[in-house]
Structures are given as structure tokens and as C-alpha cells.
């Protein structure tokens, strides 16, 4: 029997046994889907976005379906970083895959504060900074649309942790390359591309927005072609690894992102529809590599033929 293909990748010093990561806000606090598969088999797990203090989230309706897409305005409902460390980490620490915390601050200082608290926690492999959440009034997306602010947030987090720092970019900008370069210069070890697109939907029967918050973030297969283009663009702009996401539903979608140069991928909305998506992508990539005689996944990454 031929040896299994090597799927391991390196994200800014963080070693993943495979390039499949669960996206923040779509995998709960990491252990909810264990009835379906063992999360230790994944490359990494990014938990629900955390803020310094617990946040209640937005009033319902918080979600609306659109063609091949999902609008959400969860509004960063979370238990807060302290409760997370105390209540959730003990269980998560048992998972044999790196845990990545996704953090969101109302101010630059809050980001730094959170990085500091996480710094001491064992089992947390990296920090993903969310400067692109469309669902909160202050901060969030505003930090992500301006290169200088994005760099400042990044720098502040980098100064407060020794863990690899991943910056999650917003797609709602004219030129994502500029933002990507700015956070690279500020010390980010990787970028995640992309967070959700601003969107809305209207219920014509009631003549009201379908989301109580009016505006939400669009995710799911609908956004895949745009996300893929943005990943392609950022890969060309920076040297740090790019983690691709947006509408990935199966290993074929994952391969599209890897081919354009994503070093790893995240599975978001798909977890809701098929909770086994992430593990099935791991298996699908393994089978694909075996079939195509690819011994190492790095031979696929960036392997798009363009001539």
C-alpha cells in the first residue's frame, strides 16, 4: 500500500496535520459536534468569536436565508473571554488539534487585553483577530477597512502575545491587498480571507427587513467565487500564509482555494448543513491526493495553471 499523502501545513509557525480548520462562529465552542466526529482529526479549531466581556447578541430574527447563502446578525453573542478560559478551555484542551481563539474588541486596547489573557492559556495555538465583524456598532468592520487602523490593531496584539497572530480580513473594501500588506507589515503571521459580506433581505409580506438588525453578514456558497478571487488577490500581495474561506462545502471547493494559493482553508456555514463537512473534507483531500499521486499537499497549494 502506498503511503498516505502528507497533508500537513505550516501557518506562521503553527503546525497543522491537515489544512482543514473550522471557522469562527460556526463550530460553537469546539466540542458541540463531537457526536458527529472527533475534532482532534482536524487541522485546527477556531472557536466562537470572543470579546472581553460577555455580549448578549442582537435581537431575533438573527438569520435569514438567501439564494445559496446565509445572512446572519448574531451580533457577537458570546460568554466573554474569562468564562471561555474557565468553562470551555478545560474540555477543549483535551482535543489534539490546535485551538485558535477568534477575538473582537471594541477598542484597540481591548484587543491587546484579550491577547494578554490568552497568552498564558495552554492549548491555544494561535489568535485570530476579527477586524471585520459586520454585526456590531463600534469597532468590528471599521477596524478592517482602513489599512492604518488594521495595522495598529495587529501591532497591538502582536506586542501582547508570543502566539502566532492571524488577521481575519473583511471583503467589504476596494482593495484588500492594501489591508493585507498593512497587517503583514504590522507583524501578522497569517491572514484569513474572508469574513462575511454586508447584505440584507426584505420580507415583502411585512415590508420589514428579515433581520432585526437590518444588515447582516452573507456567508455560504453564494460568496465562494468572490472569496476565491480575494484569496487569489491576497496571495499575490503578501508573503505570509493565507487561509481561505467563504462558501466551502466539500473537498472540491477546498481544492479551489488551495490551488489559488491558500495554505489552509476554513469551513463555516457548511458545518450547519452537514456537521461532518470538515472531516469529510480531510478525507476527500486525502483521497484526491492519493488518486492524483500527490504525496504532499504543498504540491497542490498555489498550483493553479494559468497559461
Amino acid at each position, binding site marked *: 500500500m502506498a503511503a498516505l499523502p502528507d497533508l500537513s501545513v505550516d501557518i506562521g509557525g503553527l503546525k497543522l496535520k491537515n489544512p482543514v480548520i473550522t471557522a469562527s462562529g460556526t463550530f460553537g465552542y469546539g466540542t*458541540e459536534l463531537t457526536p458527529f466526529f472527533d475534532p482532534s482529526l482536524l487541522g485546527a479549531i477556531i472557536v*466562537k468569536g470572543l470579546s472581553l466581556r460577555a455580549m448578549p447578541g442582537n435581537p431575533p430574527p438573527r438569520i435569514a436565508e438567501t439564494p445559496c447563502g446565509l445572512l446572519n446578525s448574531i451580533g457577537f453573542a458570546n460568554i466573554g473571554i474569562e468564562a471561555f478560559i474557565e468553562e470551555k478551555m478545560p474540555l477543549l484542551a483535551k482535543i489534539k488539534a490546535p485551538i485558535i481563539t477568534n477575538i473582537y474588541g471594541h477598542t484597540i486596547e481591548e484587543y491587546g487585553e484579550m491577547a494578554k489573557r490568552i497568552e498564558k492559556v495552554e492549548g491555544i495555538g494561535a489568535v485570530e483577530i476579527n477586524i471585520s465583524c459586520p454585526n456590531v456598532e463600534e469597532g468590528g468592520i471599521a477596524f478592517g477597512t482602513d489599512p492604518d487602523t488594521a495595522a495598529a490593531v495587529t501591532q497591538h496584539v502582536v506586542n501582547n502575545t508570543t502566539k502566532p497572530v492571524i488577521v481575519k480580513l473583511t471583503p467589504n473594501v476596494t482593495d484588500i491587498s492594501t489591508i493585507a500588506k498593512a497587517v503583514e507589515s504590522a507583524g501578522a503571521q497569517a491572514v484569513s480571507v474572508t469574513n462575511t459580506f454586508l447584505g440584507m433581505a426584505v420580507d415583502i409580506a411585512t415590508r420589514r427587513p428579515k433581520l432585526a438588525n437590518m444588515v447582516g453578514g452573507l456567508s455560504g456558497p453564494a460568496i465562494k467565487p468572490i472569496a476565491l478571487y480575494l484569496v487569489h488577490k491576497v496571495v499575490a500581495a503578501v508573503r505570509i500564509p493565507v487561509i481561505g474561506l467563504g462558501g466551502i462545502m466539500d473537498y472540491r471547493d477546498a481544492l479551489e482555494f488551495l490551488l489559488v494559493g491558500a495554505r489552509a482553508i476554513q469551513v463555516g456555514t457548511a458545518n*450547519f448543513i452537514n456537521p461532518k463537512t470538515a472531516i469529510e473534507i480531510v478525507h476527500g483531500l486525502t483521497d484526491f491526493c492519493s488518486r492524483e499521486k500527490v504525496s504532499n499537499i504543498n504540491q497542490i497549494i498555489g498550483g493553479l495553471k494559468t497559461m
Partner: protein
Amino acid sequence: MVEETVSLECNQQIGTNIWLMEFRSALLASHAKPGQFLMVHLGERTKDPLLRRPFSIHGIRDGDKVMILYNVVGAGTSLLSALKEHDTISSIGPLGNGFTLPRPSERAVLVGGGIGLAPLFFLAQALQKDHGHTVTVFLGFPTSQQVVRIQQLKDLGVNLSLTTEDGSLGIKGVVTDLLHQRLGNKGTTKPVIYACGPPPMLKEVAQKATAFNLRSYVSLEGYMACGLGICLGCAVKAAHGEGKPYYYVCHDGPVFPSGMIDWEVL
């Protein structure tokens, strides 16, 4: 909670826009509790509609046949209604908490509005068969064409009363009228109320329960992306003093003691 691919035994229209689906699942038949629900996938061949759809378990038949009673209201249920015998679907369940059954001494009054009948049938099955309770069922429908599953309910041996809004069958009016009347009857013992239906109906049930100081359980709907407690989409506002701002229908419900919910904003 498991994901199963099941093959449809039957998927039939039984009323105006109302369908009954049946498939075998030994697991659900033996483990599911009344009030629990399933997340049903709409088929591998398309990504639109994207999300699974939540449906209550309507009942168990012939040992291991699971029933879903559903209203065709949009694209998802329309796709479901096009499925034929032997077509397969993926279902995740049983999900949620289910109804808290009454104590042996207690009477149960089940109040259903429209498709709210769905989980109540299963509850009636459980109460009659396994526990031998005296069960009263009040059902309300817009019109007689939507009145379904009545004979099957009667066969369970429940006391059944009906309303239709247009008076085409049963008593003319809404189902909460029946509840009001029943609670007005001085002589009878205090029942536990179990309700499922549109929010305004549930709200009225909740108010009645408070007014008469009764225990009452309501089964709520909510927009669900996952049904698994991971998206935090299905929030409902908790009543003041519950110690948390929101409950999550899929995880904390779908059945709630009516006092837990903030009815002002529902």
C-alpha cells in the same frame, strides 16, 4: 443525536398544503421524546435552499415508522413535497428537549393551532399509550380543508374539540376560546397545558396559564441555521429575571415553560 439517511415510505398530501411524510428509523422510534425535532436536509442535488429545515416529530407508527406532518409554505417544503417513495433524505435528530410529561395525578390539555398539531400528536400518543393519562386536545384551524389527522387522534382515545375560524367544521372561533371555556369550568382539576401554534396563540395561552396559575409548556419556532446549538441564530428573548438575555430554541427548547419567555417581544 445522529445523522441518518432514511428512505421515504410515504410522502402524501393530506390537506390544503399539508403533507405527511413517513420513514423508518429504529433509533428515533425508540429514543425520541414528544416535542423533539429533526433537522431535515433537502437533498444532495442542490444547494438552494441551503439550510436544513426543522420539523417536529409528529408521531411513531407501526413500531419504527417516524412521521412528519408539514405545511408547504416556501421553497424548502415545496422541495420536500416533491420527494417520492424510496427517495432518501438525511435527518439529524432527535434534537431539543421535548415536553415535560405531567405527573400521574395531573390532567393534560393540549392546545394546537394549525400545523402546531404536529408535535402534539406524538405527545398524545405518549400520554395515552405509555401513561394512560386523561388527555384533552383542543385544535384550531383556519378552515375545514386544513383539518387533518382527526380520526387518528380520536383513535388514540383523547377528548377532542375543534374550532375553525370560518366555522366550516367544529366550533366557529379560535382554539383559545376552547381553552378559556375549559378553564372557566369551576369543577374540574387544574390541568397542565401543552401548546404549539403561531406566536399570538402561544402568547394567549401563556397569559391564561399565568392568570389561572397553571403549569404550561409551549413549543416555539425560531429561525434555525443549525439546530445544533452552534450558530446562535435561534434566539428568543428570555423573561425578565431569567438571568440571561436570550434562550436558544434548538438547545434550550423548543419546549419552554411559558414563564421563561418574554412574550412582549415575541
